[in-house]
């Protein structure tokens, strides 16, 4: 989804860093010309034998698998800064060396590439999968069951809610890298100008939306993203919905359950009364709305704070971040938007080494530092122990000195633990968004789109032979 982590520019560099001759210059060149992926592939290819030779010399002849030799792993990711992380890993590890390949983000072809590679039997050792797709790849047998490899130490370091999203029937299929509590980014300057308090509840949010429309008819408080089924999922999750649920050995699907209906009715009202924009939450129109200050607040995961800094440097100092408005302020619940996990694939021949690499990426401060060194990022690590690292590395000036990591930390602990993503989220998301897109002109309603998404997902699940029940239609 466009609302997830943005696809980084092609930063393909030679996959094997220990080749001092071939390493840095092509990487520089590739960075200067982000479009020339073919060229960087070529440089990578030319660097490969060299790198192989160097590492072979260093390790006494064996280049893969042997007890004395170096274990080579392949790693695919679309995440920003992965190259820096891999470089750092390779620099500090002798027995495991990682070949990194930058791939397109999931919906831009990354997932297709992964499933095709798995079908052909040559998937990478370690793959990056976002939370909603973890069940899909686990069911398809691409992500292997890594329960025995995840030791208690690693388990204790991770936020339980994040690990819960990658665990099914007590089996773990991938390890969370980051968990991104959804927060409200808002224009402090415009809130002050129109005399709006930061809303703590959704009722206050609606009142604020009315105030904005009254005082500045061309502006709106927020946008209902017609391309943001996952944002809507996050709203539903916060209200206590359970779209997917495992009960009695079957997937129970209830997209239109009571909390979802409540959330749908809420946003329907805001849209009908023209209190919010209803248009895509990404793309030119939305960029223009934010750039021209027509939009006063927006909802996204913690990661987006860094993306915002990169995308709109001119609005430095105008933005602040607050927690999500609540339905019940006494029992606050937060949901997530975005976030990635690492899976060991079925084709991996060195699962222990792969797990060591994953654990290092997820828990080691050096890994997070390397990732943040690639540019402004505000990833919230799934291992709370790393929060201090992110906090120190993050430049606070864009948000007027606000300590956003402390806010993320508070919010992350409120993440509702009862959410589960389903076996095929992409059909659900696309059908729902097709419905949202038809809302203008009153041809579809929010809840209608949700119901259509359920109807459009069931055939997929049935064709996969899964046991399913439906508790809402």
């Amino acid at each position, binding site marked *: 989804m466009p609302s997830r982590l943005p696809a980084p520019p092609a930063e393909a560099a030679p996959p094997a860093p220990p080749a001092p001759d071939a390493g840095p210059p092509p990487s520089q060149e590739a960075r200067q010309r982000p479009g020339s992926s073919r060229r960087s592939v070529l440089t990578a290819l030319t660097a490969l034998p060299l790198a192989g030779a160097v590492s072979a010399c260093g390790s006494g002849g064996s280049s893969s698998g042997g007890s004395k030799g170096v274990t080579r792993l392949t790693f695919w990711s679309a995440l920003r800064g992965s190259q820096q992380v891999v470089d750092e890993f390779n620099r500090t590890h002798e027995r495991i060396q990682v070949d990194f390949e930058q791939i397109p983000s999931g919906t831009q072809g990354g*997932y*297709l590439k992964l*499933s095709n590679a798995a079908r052909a039997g040559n998937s990478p050792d370690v793959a990056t999968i976002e939370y909603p797709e973890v069940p*899909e790849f*686990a*069911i*398809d*047998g691409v992500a292997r*069951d890594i329960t025995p490899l995840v030791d208690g130490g690693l388990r204790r370091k991770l936020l339980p809610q994040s690990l819960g999203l990658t665990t*099914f*029937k007590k*089996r773990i*299929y991938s390890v969370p890298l980051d968990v991104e509590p959804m927060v409200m980014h808002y224009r402090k300057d415009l809130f002050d100008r129109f005399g709006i308090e930061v809303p703590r509840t959704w009722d206050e949010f609606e009142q604020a939306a009315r105030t904005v429309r009254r005082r500045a008819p061309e502006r709106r408080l927020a946008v209902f993203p*017609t*391309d943001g089924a996952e944002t809507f999922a996050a709203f539903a999750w916060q209200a206590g919905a359970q779209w997917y649920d*495992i009960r009695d*050995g*079957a*997937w129970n699907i209830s997209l239109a359950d009571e909390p979802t209906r409540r959330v749908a009715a809420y946003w329907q009202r805001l849209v009908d009364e023209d209190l919010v924009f209803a248009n*895509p939450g990404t793309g030119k129109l939305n960029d223009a709305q934010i750039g021209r200050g027509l939009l006063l607040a927006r909802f996204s995961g913690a990661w987006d704070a860094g993306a915002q800094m990169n995308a709109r440097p001119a609005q430095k100092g105008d933005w602040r971040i607050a927690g999500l408005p609540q339905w019940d302020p006494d029992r606050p619940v937060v949901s997530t938007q975005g976030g990635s996990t690492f899976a060991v694939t079925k084709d991996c021949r060195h699962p222990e080494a792969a797990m060591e690499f994953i654990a290092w990426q997820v828990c080691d401060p050096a890994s997070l530092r390397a990732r943040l060194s690639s540019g402004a990022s505000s990833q919230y690590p799934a291992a709370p122990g790393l929060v201090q690292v992110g906090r120190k590395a993050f430049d606070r000036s864009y948000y007027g000195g606000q300590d956003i990591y402390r806010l993320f930390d508070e919010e992350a602990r409120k993440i509702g633990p009862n959410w589960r993503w389903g*076996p*095929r989220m*992409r*059909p659900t998301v*696309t*059908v729902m*968004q*097709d419905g949202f*897109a*038809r809302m203008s*002109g009153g*041809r579809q309603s929010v809840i209608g789109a949700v119901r*259509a998404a359920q*109807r*459009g997902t*069931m*055939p*997929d699940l*049935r*064709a*996969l*032979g*899964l*046991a399913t029940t439906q508790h809402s239609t």
Partner: protein
Amino acid sequence: MTPEPAGPAPAATGAGHRSDHSSEEAGDTSMTTTAPWPAAGEGRAPAAVPAPRGARRTARRRALGACGVLMTPFFVLLVTVFLIPVATAVWLSFFGSDEPGLGFGPERTVFVGLRSYAAVLTDPTFLSGLGVVALYCLLYIPLMVLCALVLALLLDSGVVRLRAWAQLGLFLPHAVPGIIAAIIWLYLYTPGLSPVIDLLGRAGVTVDFLGIHTVVPSIVNIALWSNLGYNMVVFYAALQAVPREVVEAAVVDGAGPVRTALQVKTPLIRASIVMVAMFTLIFALQLFTEPMLLSQSTPMISSRFSPSMYIYDAAFNRNNYGLASAASVVLLVCTIALSYGVTRWTGRLDARSVPDEQQEAAV
């Protein structure tokens, strides 16, 4: 007379000899593969000359050998690019690799019967895709056949000046690949980019070519633009094969140009009309390129807009090959059934009209 283009000549041949063939064959697509004139002439020539038995047998063997050599590439291609993929799709639609229950755990390939078909046929998005294609066919096929026929009749009647240029101009869009055509039209349809929308806007008319009601007509327009010239040439070639005596007789009997066109020429090229209608139908059922490209610009075209897009989405976005294969087989069966239906229907019409003509002749 302008020289006939090479491509549709066989069609004209078939049309000219309609009365020689059985009525069934008249509507059959196989007519496009019938041998062109010279081959037929050569084939007849040796038979006319009395020859000894052995020589005749050798000739026969040679003919069979030549037949084998000439047909082999066709059958190799038929098997590799048609029969094997179809068989694979059918196999994939009946087998699935799954683990019952939640789906986690080791997979094994099992026979799943009609499960994928049941899923496809109960999928509202697939059914709505069929609906879209039905609407598209209802708009596109009559428009295409009528426009191509009218243009061909105009060209044939000599009303149009600069006939060769007109033909070239109408045929050129067909030389543009479908993807390029869709991109050109995407540019013309996109508000903010399109000079057409700009001009209309200046004239006070606001149009949204990619709105909910206009999106199917917009796709029809692209397809018409691309294929009109080709089908017009097919009709024109068929019209060239209409015996001039018949036309002259009609003129002598007092038929005006319009009546000649509609009541003399058009019935004589009916076989071509049926063929064009059927090919258009087959292509229309596979609607894919235009909506796929236009979907970038409008949310009104969903990822499962047409059956072909549904298949693509199922295979490559939803990673559900069983579902995609079942949908493909359903689409294939629909296409075959419709083609067969059209053939049978027109065949019966022919069979009925021939005795009528004979009766009229007797009277």
